[in-house]
């Protein structure tokens, strides 16, 4: 594939981006900037959790039960060492949230990526090829839709544990969650991509590409895909939020990550038990983090939808 006319031909890619309409639209939307700052901060915090976090919540040698259930620093009985308080085992909440964010974002991101990969591929093929292939793929999608993510996760979890006997939850949890999220979310991508592909393949620019004899996969990749990605990008961002919530739900129900390697969902599940005994911070801070993350990601997705539409520029 020779791509002779890449946009960033002369100038540097960064300079090009700073002059672009997308960046201008970004600068003119305070909401998008605020959401981006929050998402970016959470990503950086998650990626650099081991460096930023004041304590290692997974190191039993540094966790003391005498520090258990301390309230946040500004409350009566708060300990200046633990800004957001500690949980029932004496782990620093702030550190635990950072580590939990890391796990949640990784599982959510990989799950959504897998779902998008499966969904976009199948949707493109179904829409472009049509006929029986289309009918087959879309009926599979319909059946898929009747299984909720939780059921799929339970099924896969059960299968994994019976196939690999004696596998620990620590090793199996993340792959099981990623595959379950991937398998339960792909239908949305497939349907969206399929219907857009149906529209696009009837347009004459696809005919022009067929005319010069490009093979179908190349046309799908180069011509159709860029034109159907707009809606996918929106689903992608909204699904990232949903995937994080799904992971949290599964972990809350005990199918997901174990308490030794907690995600935000596990932290909420743990904290939930202490809510009515007055130790609200154990559940409130992970919960608020989850809510703010999902909201920011969605706001960013909304802005991106408008910014990436060339007709709205």
């Amino acid at each position, binding site marked *: 594939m*020779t791509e002779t006319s890449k946009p960033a031909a002369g100038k540097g890619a960064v300079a090009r981006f700073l002059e672009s309409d997308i960046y201008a639209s970004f600068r003119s939307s305070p909401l998008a900037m605020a959401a981006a700052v929050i998402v970016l901060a959470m990503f950086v915090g998650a990626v650099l959790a081991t460096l930023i976090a004041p304590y290692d919540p997974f190191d039993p040698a540094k966790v003391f039960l005498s520090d258990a259930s301390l309230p946040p620093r500004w409350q009566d009985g708060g300990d200046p060492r633990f800004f957001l308080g500690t949980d029932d085992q004496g782990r620093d909440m702030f550190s635990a949230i950072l580590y939990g964010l890391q796990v949640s974002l990784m599982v959510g991101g990989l799950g959504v990526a897998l779902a998008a990969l499966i969904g976009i591929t199948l949707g493109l093929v179904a829409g472009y090829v049509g006929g029986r292939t289309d009918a087959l793929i879309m009926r599979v999608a319909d059946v898929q839709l009747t299984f909720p993510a939780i059921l799929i996760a339970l099924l896969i979890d059960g299968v994994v544990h019976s196939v690999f006997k004696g596998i620990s939850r620590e090793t199996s949890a993340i792959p099981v969650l990623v595959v379950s999220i991937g398998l339960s979310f792909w239908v949305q991508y497939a349907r969206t991509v399929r219907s857009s592909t149906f529209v696009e393949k009837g347009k004459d*620019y696809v005919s*022009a590409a067929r*005319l010069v004899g490009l093979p179908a996969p190349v046309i799908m990749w180069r011509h159709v895909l*860029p*034109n159907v990605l707009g809606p996918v990008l929106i689903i992608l961002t909204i699904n990232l939020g949903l995937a994080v919530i799904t992971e949290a739900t599964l972990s809350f129900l005990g199918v997901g990550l174990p308490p030794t390697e907690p995600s935000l969902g596990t932290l909420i599940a743990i904290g939930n038990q202490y809510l009515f005994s007055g130790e609200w911070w154990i559940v409130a801070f992970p919960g608020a983090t989850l809510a703010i993350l999902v909201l920011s990601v969605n706001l960013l997705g909304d802005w991106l939808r408008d910014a990436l539409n060339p007709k709205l520029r």
Partner: protein
Amino acid sequence: MSEASLVVVRGLRRDFDISRPWLNRLFEGQRRLFLRAVDDVSFEIAKGCTFALVGESGSGKSTVARMVVGLLPPSDGEVTIDGISMQSASDSGSRQKLRRRIQMIFQDPYASLNPRWRVSRVIAEPINTFGLLKGEAVTKKVGELLTLVGLHPDDGDKFPHEFSGGQRQRIAIARALAAHAEFIVCDEPTSALDVSVQAQILNLMRDLQKEFGLTLLFISHNLAVVRHMADRIGVMYLGRVVETGDSRALFARPRHPYTRMLLDAVPDLDMSGRQRTPVAGEIPNPINPPSGCTFHPRCPQANERCRREIPAMIDGVACHAVEEGRAG
């Protein structure tokens, strides 16, 4: 005319399957339904000439165009370009060689250019696909092509939506010329454009045709456009060619009743003395076409034979009335 013909179309036919889905047919007891969009269409185009197909909407003009360029496989018949049959060129090498020589200009310039691609990439695609040039030479060639169609080489950095309809059609023409195609099929290239822009585009196409010796198949429902462009004309009605002839002769002395009907409907000062028959009725439903000559329900000269027999193409016209000398 046959020895210099670049394009030869023989007995082209196309049926579309318009049946309901299999399950519906099974439960509702329906049979398969076919629509014959094009039936037994034959013509030849001499090198460097323009052949125009005219007809109302639904007469099958665009279906012929799509079959001629190979976007749609014909149900029957054959398209031969310079002695090589499109249908039998099965190995990818010879097929690709043939494809390089054919290009198409589409009706809707808003849909024929990929909206996410910069113009230079759109024009460079045929060059790159056929591997004609490499690297810097491609950029230079794209600039030349843009200049050739009356745009600026810097326009290559823009996206299609930054251009007007006429400018987009110029870009489409540049793309069609990029791989040095000899034969260009134009499917109503100006019908989506403003009247003021139509003439510019048509003149550009004529100039380029002269410059590169292009052979054109021109599809249109606009008789004024056809008169301006075509050397020879084929008039289509409900999937069949009813009359062919030299452009001048056909406009001066139309023979088939349908051709006359079309020409009479053109508002033209020169024809004010002639008796006018307005285009009566509409094109029938091609799913259930009339028996015999498909034009008979609208034809002022139809008789019993026209309702029974399909007229054969004799001396450039397929009509019983002309054959029997009844047509005045």
